């Protein structure tokens, strides 16, 4: 990641164990963890205070199956994202809202290769 400021990655997920793990994995990979919230409603409410370059998004959140809407909402604000989900059919049906899909359970290799898509989006 050379001398550039590391990418700040936000995580929209309602499962605290998975957030805990992904936070550690992101730090291992040299990214900055930009916080986590559990619902699309909370994201909209707190967006002004959050500092993120990109996001990871679960499909099912605390306020329902709102992950795809959250991805589109962030996309409209210039924030690229990836789905992190076990709901692959819904993820594929909403693929235009994201740059890629990470399957659960998370494999670190898959996470790191998909994160490169977010890096590439920043360069372009």
């Amino acid at each position, binding site marked *: 990641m050379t001398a550039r400021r590391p990418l700040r990655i936000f995580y929209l997920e309602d499962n605290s164990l998975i957030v805990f*793990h992904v936070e550690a994995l992101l730090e291992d990979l040299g990214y900055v963890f930009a916080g986590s919230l559990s619902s699309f409603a909370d994201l909209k409410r707190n967006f002004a205070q959050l500092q993120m370059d990109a996001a990871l998004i679960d499909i099912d959140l605390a*306020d329902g199956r709102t992950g795809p809407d959250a991805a589109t909402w962030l996309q409209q604000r210039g924030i690229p994202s990836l789905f992190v989900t076990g*709901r692959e059919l819904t993820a594929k049906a909403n693929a235009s809202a994201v740059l890629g899909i990470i399957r659960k359970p998370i494999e670190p290799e898959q996470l790191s290769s998909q994160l490169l898509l977010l890096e590439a989006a920043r360069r372009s």
Partner: protein
Amino acid sequence: MRDHIEREIALRLELNHRVKNILASVSSMFQMTLRGAQSVEQLAEDFSARLIALSKVHSVVFESGGEAVSLKTVVDITMSPYRRDGGSRVAAKGPDITLSRDAGTTLALCIHELATNAIKYGALSLPDGRVDLDWRIVPTEDEAFLIIEWSETGGPPVSPPSRSGYGTKYMRSALGSLFGEPPSIVYDPSGLHCTIRGALSRLSPPDRDDGKGARP
């Protein structure tokens, strides 16, 4: 007949999704326990205790319909192993509050970490030590907050740990994102004190805002 088949397919998809989610939770729990483990024995002991805590809260959430659980039930099932030898050493009290599945699961895992720490190093490691676990609702101008206080007394003198372990890190991460703020942990020489605080609106199940006495 077709309706029946479609429903069956939808149920199977949903079940598959839930199983994947549980496997993902367990996998993350294992990976994080592994990071903090000093030996294979410690890894096995800590991981199985965490898995049992997760499994118990899963059962009570399932029994209460799958989407919500009462805080009192979460406290009771999480503290039950530590009450067997001397029931009066852990006193838990507070109003009846309904939590969402995720808030209930997260709180159960946090209370499990506090209890494990108390048994190993804190008040519950000595015969005269005790834990008070109290919760209450505190209204502010805009919204109501749930405040949970864990206080240990009668244990060995407490000093801040040199490095934070799984329990502290998990509580900071989980409560920070789900409850909106990390817990306050005070290493008072006379006993560890932990305060957990979260806006009730973030902890309640989505469809039932009544929360059975949760609103003052």
